[in-house]
């Protein structure tokens, strides 16, 4: 299928349009909120919230008998929020550490959710069908009303982020400073946790509880590689999340039996890998390149300085020295002959018929400069 057809479908195919829009909203919101979670080293909170939401969904259905998106979202949010508060209070009140509290609460809540789901399934009415879709998500079942609810809640969350930008920034980087300025960091933390919970539950129906955590961590982790500024990081994470959402939706619509949720996760993971390898300052690829260059430069300087030292000691710049002498002086003897060739190409060293090396006039000047620079640094 060509690109034109894809665009045509994106606009005119109801299912694809709805799924793509929903996934875009989900990626946008979870990406921007995930930034704070990742910076605060609470990446796994997303995992915990999405799992703890399950009993909330089941309970909301049990209490109301309705599967309306808002009812499900409220149920999920209440349970996710309660679970998170439990995690925080267990860590604060006892010797149990964060990782144990998270793992325990997420699995116990999930287990309880299963109990409720199996309880619901045993009931005679058939309305309950489809609650399990929250486990793995079922993007294709998204309807326009779901997307509208998601978009409204998502906008609300983003507006709150804008209004409390200063507080959230302080919370992420320097909590003590924030407190000392008279801002209630505790309240800011609760607010941030609450909107993170909302951001997570609006994505549950699309990618499911198991994979939702990736949508929190991955966009932010990718954005982190490109920038050191919070504002830019939030924007980039939102863009990455949205791109992965739409990309995943389109790719899975093009291929048969390719579930949307996991495809979105693989898309965002691809963005993470590319960012880690090629991002400007931190990327592994550039890093390695930079390191190789500086290693070469260092080797060059070292040999040049060694020859300068020899020339000074002999009082004769043109006096040649065999390769072995220079190798004996170097801390990386293996690289000396290659370095000499590079220097020769630059016209800084000369080799005589006996294979002995000496500095050229240019090379001597360069070495002199180098030595002076090193002296100045000392």
């Amino acid at each position, binding site marked *: 299928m060509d690109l034109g057809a894809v665009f045509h479908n994106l606009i005119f195919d109801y299912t694809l349009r709805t799924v793509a829009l929903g996934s875009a909203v989900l990626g946008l919101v979870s990406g921007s909120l995930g930034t704070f979670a990742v910076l605060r080293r609470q990446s796994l909170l997303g995992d915990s919230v999405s799992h703890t939401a399950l009993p909330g969904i089941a309970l909301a259905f049990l209490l109301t008998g309705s599967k309306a998106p808002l009812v499900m979202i409220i149920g999920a949010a209440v349970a996710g929020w309660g679970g998170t508060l439990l995690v925080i209070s267990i860590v604060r009140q006892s010797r149990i550490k964060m990782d144990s509290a998270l793992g325990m*609460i997420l699995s116990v809540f999930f287990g309880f959710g299963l109990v409720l789901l199996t309880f619901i399934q045993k009931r005679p009415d058939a309305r309950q069908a489809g609650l399990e879709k929250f486990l793995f998500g079922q993007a294709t079942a998204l309807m326009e009303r779901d997307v509208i609810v998601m978009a409204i809640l998502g906008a609300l969350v983003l507006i709150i982020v804008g209004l409390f930008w200063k507080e959230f920034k302080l919370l992420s980087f320097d909590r003590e400073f924030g407190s000392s300025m008279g801002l209630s960091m505790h309240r800011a933390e609760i607010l941030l946790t609450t909107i993170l919970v909302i951001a997570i539950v609006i994505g549950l129906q699309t990618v499911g509880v198991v994979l939702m955590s990736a949508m929190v961590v991955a966009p932010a982790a990718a954005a982190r590689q490109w920038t050191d500024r919070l504002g830019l990081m939030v924007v980039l994470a939102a863009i990455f999340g949205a791109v992965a959402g739409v990309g995943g939706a389109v790719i899975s619509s093009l291929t048969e039996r*390719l579930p949307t949720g996991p495809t979105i996760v693989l898309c965002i993971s691809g963005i993470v890998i590319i960012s880690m390898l090629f991002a400007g300052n931190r990327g592994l690829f550039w890093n390695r390149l930079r390191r190789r260059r500086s290693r070469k430069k260092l080797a060059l300087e070292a040999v040049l300085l060694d020859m300068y030292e020899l020339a000074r000691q002999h009082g004769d710049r043109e006096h040649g020295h065999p390769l072995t002498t220079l190798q004996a002086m170097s801390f990386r003897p293996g690289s000396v002959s290659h370095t000499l060739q590079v220097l020769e190409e630059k016209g800084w060293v000369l080799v005589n018929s006996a294979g002995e090396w000496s500095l050229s006039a240019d090379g001597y000047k360069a070495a002199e400069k180098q030595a002076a620079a090193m002296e100045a640094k000392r």
Partner: protein
Amino acid sequence: MSSAQIEIQLIAVVVAAACALPGVFLVLRRTAMMSDAISHAILFGIVIAFFVTEDLTSPFLVVAATLTGVLTVSLVELLNRSRLVKEDAAIGLVFPVLFSIGVILVSRYAGDIHLDTDAVLLGELAFAPFDRFELFGYDIGPRSLYLMGGIMLINLAFIIFFFKELKLATFDAGLAAALGFTPWMIHYALMSLVSVTAVGAFNAVGSILVVALMIAPPATAYLITDKLSRMITLSVVIGVISAIAGYWVAHWLDVSIAGSMASLTGIVFLLAFLLAPERGMVAIARRRFRQKWEFAQTMLAIHLFSHEDQPEADRECRFDHMDEHMRWNEDFSEKVVGRAEENDILRREGEYLRLTDHGRDLARTAMIK
């Protein structure tokens, strides 16, 4: 009880014990979330192995899933060491990828194989007795009982043989390295055991609830005891009790056995969190309450002691002076004085408060401290 019921409970008990053993070290080493990552990621290994063997109980599955578990741990370490992301984010990045690939593979070939993600994720203990283990044509019990029994014994043997190494690497990794042990090897060995246990248990309880059985009982035991060997025993006992109680609750309500077992481990933790002898919330609240009154009485004793036999004693050692000096309201003062009288710290003589010999001793020792 029918024989199937007994068999289900036996399997539940063995699974709970097998999970609690490595779980103790996960909790102590602060790597509990690795069990969550591993239990999700092994779906990938299970699916790949299943494509090859087409048998959900093949030992090859255990091998493949264990390798996936180790792969997960190595990838997390690799990301962590690149210093591009923090450890928590590294965990959160790795397992969803492997899990997603697993889900995609399952749904791509869903028509051809009898494996669905629900089964891996959720498990169904009630079906476990149907899969029999036959030896020389004789039926000797459900297969998963033998599988999990074997895994439990491996875990137990590992902990017994490497108890010293585990203890050292857990509580003082630096010293362990200095003494020539290799903490990273212990780490990988432990993570391999977690993977083996998770894959063995996924059939019975599903991969997410494995996490509950691994983390909750040791966390509960951690609230109760300070001794490693006792914590291990206690974790196993708590896991086993939760498993059996969970089975009967599930039986009674006709709901998911695995979910019910996980819920029970949570309830037991909650009980310990509230009621544990020294670290429970109730014990802490009671201790604080007692300390508050003891502190007030000591303060009063010191106050009286320092003004006793001084010219200002008439004014300072009066009951109604406390409002001014200690900022106590009358009601509180009344209670403190009453308690102090009961404890033979002071006597009331009209408006005056006089220390007893015991009260003087108390003030003196408190001031020395």
